[in-house]
């Protein structure tokens, strides 16, 4: 148990997360704030031998007046004393190289009257730039402890821990500005209504009570009435407050900051920007970086993926050899273990992708991508900020949709959420690779471009184009609620912090395994049951038929092949088989038979299930998931009526297009519901994507067959 709760508050790009990682190490977890979907990062830290602290990392913001959903959480936590995350001490993290703007938030938090201390982070950078800050004087003028730190170099960590445990639980700060002048009567009335002594808290309640869920319906109406009675003009008062605060900060900072070398400050960043955001080089470099990311995802992950694959094959074989045979063993090995293998295999790709994304974000490059792409994206109803979720969509739509919270504008955000699942995610990758290896010859073009690789890239290009086109259509359908903003800091270029990269990899992989894992294991078990059992009448008949034949046979090879035929016939008559045959008429025009139909059904919960289902259906021995064996089985599969191969080029392409466009992921449906707080959007998404998939497959098959 923690003895003290500490909240980290600060502007974006101040090294707040680095400080959080430094304080808590791997002793951290991600939770949810009750009722809202903003991730809550909490961790634990030993301040001294007998004092433990719970550290809460609040979303970065420039002020207590939020611009996005994420930012609104800061006031909610700081204002609500009954909130389980309400801190005993606030640690305000400020960037020493840009102190004045950072202190705006500091003075707002200070006026709320919470016990607090100030961390001047990045003092090493400030020193390099020739900025000297008189820390003692600053502490004296603000009335709080000020700790100079450099979280990147772990400088000042012990001092900070001591300062936190020495912070008195009664606030000591000097009040920044007298806010009563902005709305004297309204503030007095609200103070009485909500029983508070704090003027600034009362003013914040007047501004933002709609966002503060802890007020009852009645209280909301009463506050609303006070606003009306005194003609409370929110925007005007916010503006006046900001000006007053900056004026106050100018007096605080007088004779405290000595800036000697401002000239050379942005030299490196300027030079890099002139290349990286250049009209020609900018886009070229961006495309090259994307190409590198793709290449890394596929080539770096192949070795660990083979290792994991072989590990699970070994585990299954070992289990079958050493566990007593029976239904439970089969369920465990062919259901649970197979399902688990299907999830773990994606970890290398997800870890690599998020490592690369976090490097791009950490260095400041992602902000430039946003800057370069905004004009194009806006034409299609998106914002420059949609680029990050859409690139992330290549790994997995689930975390990407959550990252769309950074988009302040509601319409931009909804459209981004609606089209992100169209971007081909890593779960489609095994489907593509399996089908491509089946029908595209392994040839080289121009000696170095693999035809299979090009086909794969084409699938990704198609998916991104589809996402952009759908966004363009939605731009005209969805009505805007508010104006779209694009006011954003362009941070200076920095070296990535490798520890942050590792934390991100660890955290995202963990989230993926836990979130997607639950669904996939459940499906694997259900699928196993559906494919193993069927109406008893039919099963008894099959059992009788084969017992009769087997009794007359002595050849062991023949027996083995009979055993396989029996399994295949059982599958055809199992519940899964019956289901597949029921939908066959609907999918026949797409070139799919009932076996593919089973895979489509199981894939509606998670597309990862495709390869596993195919391997079950084509009765691969030992549940071996090596694609080579499945591939051969599928290649040999013949249509019983015509005797022609099932997986022709037309069928395979149609199937790939279906997987590219269809919404076959329960986790995404769930996350869209969570993010939009309504079933309307996930339902629209499910319907439009399925319709698109069907039409695309239909056209492709009918033209190519």
């Amino acid at each position: 148990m923690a003895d003290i709760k500490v909240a980290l508050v600060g502007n974006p790009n101040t090294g707040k997360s680095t400080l959080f990682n430094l304080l808590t190490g791997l002793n951290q977890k991600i939770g949810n704030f009750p009722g809202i979907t903003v991730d809550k990062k909490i961790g634990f830290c030993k301040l001294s031998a007998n004092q433990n602290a719970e550290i809460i990392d609040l979303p970065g913001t420039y002020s207590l007046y939020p611009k996005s959903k994420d930012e609104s959480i800061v006031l909610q936590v700081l204002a609500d004393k009954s909130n389980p995350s309400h801190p005993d001490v606030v640690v305000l993290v400020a960037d020493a190289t840009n102190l004045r703007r950072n202190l705006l938030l500091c003075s707002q938090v200070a006026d709320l009257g919470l016990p607090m201390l100030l961390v001047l982070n990045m003092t090493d950078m400030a020193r390099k730039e020739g900025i000297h800050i008189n820390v003692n004087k600053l502490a004296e003028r603000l009335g709080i402890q000020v700790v100079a730190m450099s979280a990147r170099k772990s400088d000042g960590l012990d001092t900070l821990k001591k300062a936190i445990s020495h912070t008195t639980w009664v606030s000591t700060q000097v009040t920044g500005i007298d806010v009563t002048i902005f709305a004297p009567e309204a503030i007095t009335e609200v103070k009485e209504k909500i029983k508070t002594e704090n003027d600034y808290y009362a003013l914040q309640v007047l501004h933002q009570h709609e966002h503060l869920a802890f007020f009852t319906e009645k209280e909301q109406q009463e506050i609303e009435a006070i606003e009306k009675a005194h003609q409370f003009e929110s925007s005007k008062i916010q503006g006046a407050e900001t000006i007053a605060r900056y004026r106050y900060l100018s007096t605080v900072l007088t004779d405290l900051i000595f800036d000697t070398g401002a000239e050379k400050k942005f030299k490196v960043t300027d030079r890099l920007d002139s290349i990286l955001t250049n009209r020609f080089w900018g886009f070229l470099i961006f495309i090259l970086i994307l190409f590198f990311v793709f290449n890394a995802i596929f080539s770096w992950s192949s070795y660990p993926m083979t290792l994991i694959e072989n590990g699970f094959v070994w585990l299954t074989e070992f289990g079958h050899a050493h566990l007593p045979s029976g239904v439970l063993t089969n369920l465990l090995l062919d259901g649970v273990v197979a399902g688990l293998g299907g999830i773990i295999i994606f970890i290398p790709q997800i870890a690599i992708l998020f490592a690369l994304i976090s490097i791009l974000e950490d260095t400041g490059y992602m902000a430039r991508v946003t800057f370069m792409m905004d004009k194009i994206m806006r034409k299609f109803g998106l914002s420059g900020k949609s680029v990050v979720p859409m690139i992330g969509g290549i790994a997995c739509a689930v975390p990407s949709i959550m990252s769309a919270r950074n988009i302040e504008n509601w319409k931009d955000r909804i459209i981004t959420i609606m089209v992100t699942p169209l971007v081909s995610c890593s779960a489609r990758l095994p489907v593509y690779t399996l089908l491509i290896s089946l029908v595209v010859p392994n040839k080289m073009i121009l000696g170095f471009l693999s035809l299979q690789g090009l086909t794969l890239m084409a699938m990704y290009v198609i998916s991104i184009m589809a996402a952009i086109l759908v966004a363009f259509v939605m731009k005209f359908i969805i009505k805007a609620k508010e104006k779209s903003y694009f006011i954003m800091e362009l941070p200076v270029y920095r070296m990535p912090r490798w520890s942050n990269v590792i934390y991100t990899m660890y955290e995202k992989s963990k989230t993926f395994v836990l979130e997607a894992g639950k669904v996939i294991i459940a499906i694997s078990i259900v699928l196993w049951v559906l494919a193993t059992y069927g109406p008893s009448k039919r099963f008894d008949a099959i059992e009788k038929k084969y017992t009769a034949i087997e009794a007359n046979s002595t050849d062991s090879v023949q027996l083995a092949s009979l055993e396989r035929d029996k399994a295949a016939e059982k599958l055809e008559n199992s519940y899964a088989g019956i289901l597949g045959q029921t939908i066959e008429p609907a999918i026949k025009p797409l070139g799919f038979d009932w076996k593919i139909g089973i895979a489509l059904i199981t894939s509606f919960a998670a597309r990862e299930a495709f390869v596993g289902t195919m391997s079950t259906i084509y009765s691969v021995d030992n549940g071996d998931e090596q694609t080579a064996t499945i591939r051969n089985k599928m290649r040999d599969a013949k249509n019983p009526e015509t005797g022609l191969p099932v997986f022709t080029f037309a069928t395979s392409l149609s199937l790939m297009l279906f997987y590219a466009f269809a919404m076959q992921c329960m986790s995404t449906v769930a996350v869209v519901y969570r993010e939009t707080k309504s079933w309307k959007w996930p339902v629209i998404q499910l319907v439009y994507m399925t319709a698109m998939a069907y039409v695309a497959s239909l056209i492709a098959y009918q033209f190519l067959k």
Partner: protein
Amino acid sequence: MKLSQLNPGEQGTIVSFTDLEMSVKLMEMGCLPGEVVEVERFAPLGDPIAIRVAGYQLCLRKSEASVIIIQ
């Protein structure tokens, strides 16, 4: 004159804003009346623009820059 009319390398001093709601956001980010702003560069396609203000680099769309009146 509006900030959106400047070319890269040109400077101006903020005088006022023509949009109240936008001015609140801009002032929080350090774009205060009296502050000197310099246009650093345009995005490759001409919009948004990057400006230097209050010791850091800020980017905003031209439509947003057009609410800032400068001298």
